[in-house]
C-alpha cells in the first residue's frame, strides 16, 4: 500500500482523484501532498530497517537454538551414557506362610532373587542370579553364553544350572507348585547348579533336537558328595550328556522329551575314602495342551521325570553298588486367566537305602493377580518311610506369595 502510493501510476491516480474530488486544489493542498510523500518515504525506510532487523534476529535465534540443541543433546548423552548400557535387572521375592504337622508354623522368607542379564559383545551374552534367603546369600548362577559360534554350537561357562532334566533348571519360584519335589532334591540335589562348561548343538533337523555335553566340578546345589572348592583329579569331575527333543502333535498339543546322564568317575573325597563312580540318569516327559486361540484362559501341562542314582554305598557287608530310582509327576490345568490348579505326586527314595521312600501328594491352586504377582495355596501329605528329616512327614500347608519386579526372564529353559 505504501509502495503503491509512490509509483508514476499512483501519482496519476492521485491526480485524477484530486481533479474530480476537488477541482479547485490550492497550492497549500499541493504542499500538503508533498509532506505526506515525505512521511511515507520516511515510513518506508523505517520499515526496511525493521525488516532487516527481523531477519537478523531470526538468524541469531536459529544459530542460538542450534547451539542450545547441541548442548542439550550432549547433556542428555552424558546423562544417559552411564546407565544406557546397564543390564536388564529384575528381582523376585518369594515368601511362604507354612504349617507342618511335625514342625509347626513358619513365615519362610524363601528367596529374594536378583537377576541381571545383557549382551557382552557381538559374540556373547551373560546373565546372573544372586539369591538371598534367610540362611545365606549366594551366586546361584553367573554364566557367559556364546551367541555366534558356527556350526550350530553354543558354549556356556561359569556357574549355571547344568542341562540335566527339566525341573532341575528352574529356580524354585518358577515351579507350578510350592516346593522342590523331594525326588529331585534327594537324587539330583535340587537345582542342577554347577561350576563348569557346557557345549550344546542344535541338530539341523526339521524338528527340534538338541544335544548337550558338559563338564563340571559337581552337579546339584545340595549335592554334598563332592567338594566344589578344591582342585582335584579329572576323574572327580562330573560329565554330562543330554538329548532333548520336542514335537507338535497337533496345533494345540505338544510333547517334549529329554534324556540326561551325568557321570562322575570317582566321588571319593577325604571324608569318604571308599566311594566309587556315580551315575545319575534322568528321563523327562512333558505333554502340553495349549489351545492357541485361548492360551490366556485354557491349558494343561502334564510333566514328569524319572531319576536314577547309581553309586557305591558302604554297608556292614562291605561296599555295594546301589541303584535308587525315583521321580515325580504333576498335572496343572488353567481354569481361567487368573486361576490354575494341579496335583503333584512325588516318589523320593533314600539314596542310602533305596527301599525306603517318601511319597508325597500335593494338590495346589494358584491365583495370578497379574503376570507378576501370584498367590498359591498348597496342601501336601508326605508318607515318609525314610525318616531322614522330621519335617518331611505328615500334613503340610503352604501359602506362597511370589512377585516380580522389573525385567524377568529365565528364557527358553523354563518355558
Amino acid at each position, binding site marked *: 500500500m505504501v509502495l503503491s502510493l509512490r509509483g508514476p501510476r499512483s501519482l496519476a491516480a492521485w491526480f485524477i482523484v484530486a481533479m474530480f474530488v476537488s477541482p479547485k486544489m490550492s497550492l497549500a493542498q499541493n504542499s500538503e501532498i508533498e509532506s505526506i510523500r515525505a512521511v511515507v518515504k520516511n515510513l518506508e525506510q523505517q520499515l526496511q530497517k525493521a525488516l532487516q532487523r527481523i531477519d537478523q534476529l531470526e538468524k541469531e535465534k536459529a544459530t542460538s537454538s542450534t547451539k542450545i540443541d547441541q548442548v542439550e543433546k550432549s547433556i542428555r548423552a552424558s546423562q544417559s551414557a552411564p546407565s544406557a548400557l546397564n543390564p536388564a535387572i529384575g528381582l523376585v521375592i518369594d515368601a511362604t506362610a507354612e504349617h507342618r504337622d511335625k514342625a509347626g508354623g513358619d513365615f519362610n522368607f524363601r528367596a529374594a532373587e536378583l537377576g541381571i542379564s545383557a549382551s557382552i559383545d*557381538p559374540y556373547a551374552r551373560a546373565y546372573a542370579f544372586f539369591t538371598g534367603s534367610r540362611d545365606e546369600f549366594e551366586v546361584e548362577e553367573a554364566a557367559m*553364553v556364546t*551367541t*555366534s*559360534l558356527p556350526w*550350530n*554350537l*553354543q558354549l556356556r561357562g561359569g556357574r549355571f544350572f547344568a542341562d540335566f532334566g527339566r525341573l532341575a533348571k528352574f529356580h524354585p519360584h518358577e515351579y507350578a507348585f510350592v516346593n522342590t519335589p523331594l525326588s529331585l532334591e534327594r537324587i539330583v540335589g535340587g537345582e542342577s547348579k554347577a561350576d563348569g562348561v557346557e557345549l*550344546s548343538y*542344535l541338530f*539341523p*533337523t*526339521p*524338528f*527340534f533336537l*538338541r544335544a548337550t555335553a558338559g563338564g563340571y566340578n559337581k552337579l546339584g546345589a545340595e549335592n554334598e558328595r563332592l567338594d566344589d572348592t578344591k582342585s582335584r583329579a579329572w576323574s572327580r569331575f562330573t560329565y554330562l550328556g543330554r538329548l532333548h527333543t*520336542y*514335537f*507338535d502333535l497337533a*496345533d494345540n498339543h*505338544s510333547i*517334549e522329551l529329554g534324556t540326561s546322564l551325568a557321570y562322575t568317575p570317582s566321588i571319593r573325597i577325604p571324608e569318604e575314602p571308599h566311594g566309587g563312580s556315580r551315575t545319575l540318569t534322568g528321563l523327562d516327559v512333558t505333554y*502340553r495342551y*495349549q489351545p*492357541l*486361540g*485361548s*492360551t*490366556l*484362559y485354557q491349558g494343561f501341562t502334564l510333566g514328569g521325570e524319572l531319576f536314577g542314582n547309581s553309586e557305591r554305598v558302604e554297608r556292614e557287608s562291605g561296599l555295594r553298588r546301589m541303584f535308587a530310582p525315583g521321580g515325580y509327576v504333576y498335572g496343572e490345568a488353567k481354569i*481361567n*486367566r*487368573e486361576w490354575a490348579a494341579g496335583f503333584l505326586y512325588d516318589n523320593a527314595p533314600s539314596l542310602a537305602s533305596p527301599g525306603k521312600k517318601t511319597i508325597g501328594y500335593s494338590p495346589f491352586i494358584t491365583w495370578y493377580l*497379574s*503376570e*507378576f504377582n501370584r498367590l498359591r495355596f498348597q496342601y501336601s501329605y508326605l508318607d515318609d518311610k525314610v525318616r531322614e528329616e522330621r519335617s518331611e512327614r505328615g500334613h503340610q500347608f503352604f501359602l506362597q506369595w511370589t512377585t516380580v*519386579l522389573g525385567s524377568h*526372564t529365565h*528364557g*527358553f529353559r523354563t*518355558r
Partner: protein
Amino acid sequence: MNRIRRNVILLAAVSAAVLGFALPVSAQRIRVITTTPELADMTKQIGKEWVEVESLTKGVEFMHAVPVRPSFVPKLNRADILVENGLDLEVSWLPALLEVANNSKILPGQPGQIDCSVGISVLDTARIVDRSEGDVHPKGNPHYGLDPLNGKTMARNIAAGLSRNYPQHRAVFEKNLNAYLAELDKAINRWQTMAAPLKDVKIVTYHQDWSYFANRFGLHQIGTIELKPGIEPTPNHLVSLVQKMQQEKAGVIIYGPQSDRYPRQLASQTGASVVRLQSTAGALSETDTYIKFIDYNLRSLLAAVKKS
C-alpha cells in the same frame, strides 16, 4: 536278473537322493520367517519368487501370550531373514527362542532382522513406565498394523530390509513394492469411503489394541474392559465402565482373542453391540492377507455399528 533289478533300484535310489538335494528351488530362495501372518503376506507380495516365507503365529494367538514352542527353533535357525512387528509385541516369546536358535544373522540389530515399526508414529506411549500401570509397553502401543496407512510403512520396511540383505534383487523388490502399495492405496481409498459411518462412533475395547484403527477411522475409544493393559477388570471397574458407556452412549464393544464373557455382560447392561475383530491376519480364510484382514475388520465393525 536279480542283480540288474538291484542295480536299477540302487540307481533309482541314488538319483532320488541326488535329485532330492538338487531339486528344491527353495534352496536358492531367501528363507524368511515372520512373526505374524500379515507380515508373511506382505513379504510374499514383495519378495515374490525370491522368497520362501513362513509365519510363526497363525493369527489366532493373543500376541502377548504366544507359547514358546521349540518347534519354532529350527525355523529360526535356518532363516535368512526374520521380519518382526517390533515395539515389543513379541517380547514375551521371541527373545527366548532366539536364545537357542543359534542364528546370529537374525538377532536384534543385525541386518537380517527387519523391524517393521521403523518410521511409525507411535500412539499410547506410556506416560508412566511402571507396572502399576499394568503390562505397559515402554515403547508405545505395538498394534500399529491395524491402521492401513501404517501398512504402507510396514511394506516399505520389508522391501528396504530385503534390499539391504539382497541388493542384487533391489529392483525387483522395489517394483513389487510399488505394485503392492498401489493396490493398498486403492484399498485405503475404498476403506475411507466405507468407514464414513464410523466417524465419531464411541467404542469400548477389551485391550488397548485398537487405538491406531480408531484413530484412522475416526472412532472414539472411551475405555477398556481391562483395568490396565493385561489386568482383568475388577467389579468396580466394570460398574464404572457401564456408567461411562451409558453417559457417553458407547455403541460398540470390540474384543479379540479374549473371552467374550465381559463383553457380553457389558452389552447386556448397556445395549451396545459386541463384535469380535481380528488383531492379526491369518486366523480365517477371509483374513489370509493383510488387505483382506483390514477389510474384514472394517466390514465386521460396520455391521456392528449398524446393529447398535
